[in-house]
């Protein structure tokens, strides 16, 4: 009889059995482990900039240096249009979102394999690992953001009411990154090819996204071919970047068809990604 009555409320009963079919996403559990998520993000950030000379400055340097190169080659030399926005500003806004996406994918895709020692030794919702990796990249974006404000001030671009929609576009970018990241991280556990494919994939994806060029450069050509312009938005980065720029800089564009398409594609990628992740999660410890 020892131990009986030591709990005022009966402890929850956990049932362990082979899972069948698709199963549920168990998002409530993810919420329960939010502190672990916080610590994983914090660890990723701490570790990334330990023993570096410049520390968090790297978070600014990466999009900044790329923006400078883009401005020189695409703004000055190739003279790509930028919806009437000064090209440096145009490139930097796009690169903020792009850096979140590309870094997020890089970190997330390797995150599970890199945490093999955790996965084989202790239980927690595995979703925490790639999600934490992506959120850590969001913090990098926050660090690089003040420079954008400075750039806007320099180019005398006043913020507009659209600014209120900014968090929504950031969320869209974040969810898109998590969605693709979940797919890649789970695939990488079984097929290590993913590790080699990701850098290549990211390079291609950059050219498919309106980072260097505005979407308005492509949509008229598509429409001439009889393809509706919003098709570009199937790439979730397109809607996020165009929306982000619109909210901040108010160019003379209508990003909504793209945003709508990107929201839909993000939703599809995210939900399928989570279900795929959950369905292979059970075998991670045996395969990784």
């Amino acid at each position, binding site marked *: *009889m*020892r*131990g*009986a009555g*030591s*709990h005022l409320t*009966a*402890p*929850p*009963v*956990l*049932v*362990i*059995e*082979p*899972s069948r079919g698709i199963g549920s996403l168990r998002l409530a559990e993810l919420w329960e482990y939010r*502190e*672990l998520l*916080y*610590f*994983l993000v*914090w*660890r990723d950030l*701490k*570790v990334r900039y*330990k*023993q570096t000379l410049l520390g968090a400055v790297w978070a600014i340097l990466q999009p900044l240096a790329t923006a400078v190169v883009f401005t020189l080659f695409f703004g000055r030399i190739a003279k790509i249009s930028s919806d009437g926005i000064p090209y440096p500003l145009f490139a930097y806004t796009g690169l903020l979102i792009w850096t979140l996406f590309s870094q997020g994918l890089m970190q997330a895709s390797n995150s599970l394999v890199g945490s093999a*020692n*955790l*996965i*084989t*030794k*202790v*239980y*927690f919702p595995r979703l925490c690992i790639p999600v934490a990796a992506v959120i850590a990249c969001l913090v990098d974006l926050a660090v690089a953001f003040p420079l954008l404000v400075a750039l806007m001030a320099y180019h005398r671009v006043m913020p507009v009411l659209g600014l209120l929609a900014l968090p929504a576009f950031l969320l869209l970018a974040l969810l898109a990154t998590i969605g693709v990241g979940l797919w890649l991280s789970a695939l990488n556990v*079984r*097929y*290590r*090819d993913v590790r080699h494919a990701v850098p290549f994939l990211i390079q291609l994806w950059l050219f498919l996204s309106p980072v260097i060029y505005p979407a308005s450069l492509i949509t008229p050509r598509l429409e001439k071919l009889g393809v509706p312009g919003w098709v570009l938005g199937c790439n979730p980065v397109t809607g996020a970047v165009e929306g982000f720029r619109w909210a901040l800089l108010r160019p003379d564009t209508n990003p909504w068809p793209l945003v709508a398409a990107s929201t839909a594609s993000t939703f599809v990628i995210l939900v399928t990604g989570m279900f795929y992740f959950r369905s292979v999660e*059970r*075998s991670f*410890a*045996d*395969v990784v």
Partner: protein
Amino acid sequence: MSEAVICAQGLSKRYRIGNRQRATTLREGIIELARAPLRLGRRSAPETIWALRDVSFEIAPGEVVGVIGRNGAGKSTLLKILARITEPTEGRAEVRGRVGSLLEVGTGFHSELTGRENIFLNGAILGMKRAEILAKFDEIVAFAEVEKFIDTPVKHYSSGMYLRLAFAVAAYLEPDILLVDEVLAVGDASFQKKCLGKMGEVSKSGRTVLFVSHNMPAVRNLCPRAILLCQGLVHSLGPTDEVLRQYLGMSQTQEASPARELYRDANLGLAIRAFQLLNENGQVVPVLETGRPATFRFVVETTNRRANVTGSVGVNSLIDDGRICVFYSPLTGSELALEPPLTNLDCHVPKFPLMPGRYRLTLKLTSGAQTLAYIPAAVEVDVASGDFFGTGRLPEAPWAGHVLVEHEWRHDPDHVK
């Protein structure tokens, strides 16, 4: 009787092994897929192994249960299933209460982070809330004895400090059910003692503990009940003394493990078909007993006769891998030879002197100047507690070192008046 906190029913776990492993790169996956239609009808069954087969048991609240068995008996797999790290292939288990698993100390430690940072990270990974860690922080640091280095990255820690800190975090985890796997197989003697002490404390505080170990005295001390696993099956379940007796009596044939060939050199035409442990009655046993006669047996297959053979068995500690002793035929002046096709080469130890625990053996055979076989860390051997001195007493584990030496205490007769 109060309701069981752990109730396992028919737990089974199957692993794939061998060359029919699942494709691990996309290319293999595609090749396999492309070949699949050709293989229809004559598809060979994938090689699988049941690491755990139909395991059922119940554990009442507050019970401390030892899980014993040889390597590969399924002990760790059982713990991993209960800790939800891996899923069972069949069966189910019901677990009541918060589960803490300690399958390895220092899980999730990051070498670049400081001791302080790692305490929080490791605590969170083991399932502690931030507030809980904050409340216990000072105790954890004190237990680990790392106050001075708490803000130093753990990569600069000595291995002892690292282990102490890692165990300290885990020791202050307060789950309803604690699963512990072989934590004590690491660290120096004083650390092991500390861990055992803490384990005893935990078990006295009324929590349920499942404890996997090769340390037989520790199992005997801590666990009133034990489960003996053998080839993934529950061999026996009951009072620890009884289960341990069965474990020690279990012969290798009973265990039906495929005789593992240790070594083969086709050029030399020589193979070590098996390395066996024999008790005083010449029976093959899985475990040796301190203080009893014991025999190491090389079963050697050779194509031609070999003279001037020397055999050596080196015994190393699992804790620091230091050499403890050697059994070396030239020392005893034994003249040995190997005859085709099979020779049993025996090394007889009249009174086995090693303390209870696990040891790693390095095996070597030479013929004249030629090395026939050299297998570092060939096998691990369990030594069970026994009555070395005929007094029913053995020294305490970490304090005694590894080897027991016969001796006697008396007064100097000249001064006895």
